[in-house]
Structure formats: C-alpha cells, structure tokens
C-alpha cells in the first residue's frame, strides 16, 4: 500500500515539476523576494525588518497561489482528462490515489518554499546595513509550508466533488476565513445569545485556524529563535489534514466516473 502511495506521489511530483506555470510563479516569487534587497533602501527605519516582513509575505502569497492553483487541479484534472481510468483499474485503492496525489504536491511545495526561504535568507544575510543570518526565516517558512499543506488537502477535498473554479473559490475562502477564526471566537464570547456563543465555538473548531502557522511577526521583531514552536503546529496540521483527507477519501470512494 505504502509503495503504491509513494509511486503515485512520485508521479504527481514529476507532473508538477514539469508544469511550466509553476516555474513562472516561482520565478516571479524569487524575483519579488530578491527585490526586497532594494526595497529596504527606499524605506525608513529597520531595513532588515523590512526585508523579512516583505519577503515572508511574498513567500506566503506566492505559496498560496501555487498550493491553490496546483491543488484544485490535483484530482479534477485526472478525472477530466480520464487518466484516472487507467490508474484506478490497476491494483490501486482510491484512498491510496488521494494520499499519493496530496503527498506528491506537498513535496513540490516543500521544495518551492525552501527555495524562496533560502533566497530570502541570503538577501537578509547580505544586506549591507545590519544584515544577519536570520534562522527565524526558515522557522516562519516552515509555518507557511504547513499552511500550504493544509490548503492543498482542502483544495483536493473540494476537487473530489466540484469544478476547478468552485474548488479555487472554496479554498481561497477558507484561506481568508482561516486567518480570522480567532476573531470569530472573540465575537462569540462577546455575544449574550447562547446559540451564537455555541455556534461561534463550533465554527472556531470546525474551520482551519491558519494563524496557528503564522510566526511572521515574531521573526520580524526578532522573537522567534527556536524550532520547538513547530511541534504544536505540526500536531495541529497532522490532525486537521487527517480529517480532511479522510473526508476526501469517503467522498471519493463511491464516486462514479461518467
């Protein structure tokens, strides 16, 4: 079973790295991150902080674009192009297909995030006014990567039952809501209506809390030095992603291909 998942993952990885659009997005992302070197010159104040701030935001935005763009097509392309017919007629179970596809894309996102983080790290290191080796860039990028993996799982969930366009809308909506769930909780606490309080708590736990992966401010203000913070976030990712993938597998298990 594991071997088949790995073979599908390897093929998905090969599919994504042979996708020219991925390279176009990555090249533009690296260009923008590289340009923070000059952006800092134009700003007033803590130059290195500007580099980290804008650079991490760029990694985040371009990472989300890659995850959503590739994630929504992960399953639906296979169904639309009917390549899934041959794959599923082999001794491959449907859940192995879902897990393999998600794993393959996660590896691609790992490499692209690592490339962007490395460029940002080098820009930060080589900046002439107060440049330093900021290991926090990699820690914050690890958080961004975990968020991208979760978004990939959500995109693949949506692509099991709806079109690419709707999958993109749903995933981007959850991306936005996922960064605002703390406010939802606070909103519920302030309400005097029990139903609203319970409803907000329910939604708080149901929706993905993407702020669990957000340590950009800590890096910018120099407060993040230890990789130990990754543990809790990794646990949250594992639990949430497992639930999303299981739901995907359930929806996909009895899907008819017309």
């Amino acid at each position: 079973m594991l071997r088949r998942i790995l073979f599908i993952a390897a093929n998905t990885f090969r599919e994504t790295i042979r996708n020219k659009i991925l390279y176009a997005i990555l090249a533009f992302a690296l260009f923008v991150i590289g340009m923070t070197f000059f952006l800092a010159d134009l700003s007033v104040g803590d130059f290195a902080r500007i580099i980290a701030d804008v650079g991490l935001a760029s990694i985040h935005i371009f990472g989300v674009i890659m995850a959503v763009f590739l994630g929504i097509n992960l399953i639906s392309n296979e169904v639309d192009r009917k390549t899934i017919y041959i794959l599923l007629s082999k001794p491959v179970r449907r859940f192995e297909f879902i897990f393999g596809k998600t794993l393959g894309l996660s590896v691609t996102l790992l490499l692209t995030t690592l490339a962007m983080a490395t460029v940002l790290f080098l820009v930060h290191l080589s900046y002439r006014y107060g440049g330093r080796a900021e290991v926090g860039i990699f820690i914050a990028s690890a958080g961004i990567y975990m968020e991208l993996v979760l978004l990939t799982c959500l995109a693949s969930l949506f692509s099991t039952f709806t079109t690419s366009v709707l999958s993109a809308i749903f995933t981007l909506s959850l991306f936005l809501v996922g960064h605002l769930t703390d406010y939802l909780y606070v909103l519920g606490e302030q309400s005097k209506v029990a139903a609203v309080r319970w409803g907000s708590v329910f939604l708080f736990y149901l929706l993905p809390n993407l702020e669990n992966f957000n340590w950009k401010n800590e890096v910018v203000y120099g407060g993040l030095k230890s990789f130990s913070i990754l543990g809790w976030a990794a646990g949250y990712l594992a639990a949430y992603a497992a639930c999303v993938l299981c739901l995907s597998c359930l929806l996909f298990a009895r899907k008819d291909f017309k």
Partner: protein
Amino acid sequence: MTNSGRIIAIEGLTKSYPTGFWRIPFCVLSDLTCDVHENEIVGFLGPNGAGKTTTIKILNRLAFPDAGKVTLFGGQVRDGADVRRRIGFMPEQPYFYEYLTGGEFLRLCGQLCGMSRADTESRSSKLLARVGLSESRDTAIRKYSKGMMQRLGLAQALLHDPELVILDEPMSGLDPMGRMEVRGIIRDLKAGGKTVFFSSHILTDVEALCDRVIMLHKGRKVAEGRVEELIGTETLYIELVVSPILPADRLASAGIPPEAGYAQGPLHVLRAPDNGQANRWMAALLREGCSVHSCVPVKKRLEEIFMERVGGSAASGAAS
C-alpha cells in the same frame, strides 16, 4: 480457476445516472445478466448509448451499480488489489499523462501492478515492439497520434500479463494495419489461455474474432450467444455472377426478373431467392450463351443480426 470457469458473472445489473438540474435518474443499464467464460473472446455490441461503456466501467470499479451483482474470478468486484492484478483494462480513447514518455508510463503501470523493475522493462520492450511503438518509447506522450495512444493503451493493459483483458473499443482510431495487428494480438491472447472481453462497433472484427457476442440496446440485453448460433444456417439468397451483361428483355425471356440483378463492371450479379431458382436461372443463362463465374449461397452476417435485434428492440421500445 473459478467455479464453472466463469471469469465474469453479471447478474441483474442496473445503473442510472442523475441528469439535469433536478437530477432525474436516467437508466443506462437495466437488469443485465450475462457471463464470460475462461479462454473465451466475447464481443460486447450495441449502438452508442447502449450501456457498453457503463458496464465496462462497473467491471473496473470506475462506476458502481444501483442494483445487481458483478463477480470477477468468483469474487466480488470490490475485492480490490488481488483481483485487479489479474485484469488488464484499456478504456475507450485512452488518455495518458502527457508529460511522460511511453516508456515512463509503462514503468509507472508496472510499479502500480507490483512488478519488479526488470520484469517491467522486459515486458515493456516486448509489448512496445508488439504494438509497433518501440521507436517511440522515449517520445513524450503529448506527441503521440491517436493511433499511437490506442497502441500504448493496449500495451499498458497487457503489461502485467493479466488473465482477463477488458478492452473498450480497441479498434477505434486505428488504421487498417493497426486493426489487423490488434486482431492478431487478441487471437494471440486467446491462444495463450487468456480471456478477452471487448466492446466494438466494427462488426466484421467482432464476427471474425469472437467466440460469443452479447448485444445491448438501451441498457437491455437483446441477444447473447455464439456467433455461429446467432448467424444460423439460413441462406439469404444465392448470388450468381455471370458475363456478359444481359439486357432486360433477354433476362425476361430467360425467365429472370430484371430487378433481380445489377451490373458490376463487365459482370452481371444476380440474386436468386433459393436453390431451385438458382438452378433454373443458371440453366437459362447458359442457354443464352453466358459464362457463370461463381454461384455462392449468401448467409446472414452479424451486421444483419445486429440490425434486426437492435431495430426490433427500438421498435418495441417505441411501441411501449
């Protein structure tokens, strides 16, 4: 080996798909019961929309029936990996990962079927040579023509040396040479002890290849049996080929209705309704100084049977 040698057993298979905004069920298969025995070549016939591809998808777990049971090798179709290893499937107009080469795609198929690298390489080389794609092994699939895709589809279906081969329209998109090669491959599979179940619109191929045929129309089975049983022994007419071409008045004077024949180049082709007439006509034609080139009894072909069954079914469907 399975109970009573049945490789595929389909009982009461019913399937409908929701259509339109209100998702009203549209029945594509209705109470289909049929089977395929070991080492048979079985043709699955029917016009477009008859339910052939749906049945084949159900056999390959790509769709699920509303009712009925499908048993492969004596076990339920959902039994999964072990059963899948014994089946080779080629979908209609197969699509592949365009970013892979033909060789890379077969390697992926071999990996998914649990084959060793050495086995995959040797089987791939043999099969690519067999389907005429050896030189395109390292060419990206996006550069393949429709016929090449069809050939690659056949190669991937046979890669893991399956006992049962299910082919959905294997001849479509192939040139006459390609069709002949596929016919040869199907015959070789039978000679190698395999079972082949394939759908096709090309009735001459089905007639030439199949031990048995199953005909579907509007989701229902309209005929099933051995080709020779369906065709029967009944003679449709006796075809006489004579020369020179006789004018209508000479034919009439010889007692042959002019509308019974037509000119074909320098020859005159006549269709006698039975043996007695054929003998009388032949004697008369010889008296008129004609040469008789051939005298052949023409029997029903699968095409006529197909048109009868499908046409009859369509008419009864319309009446009901």
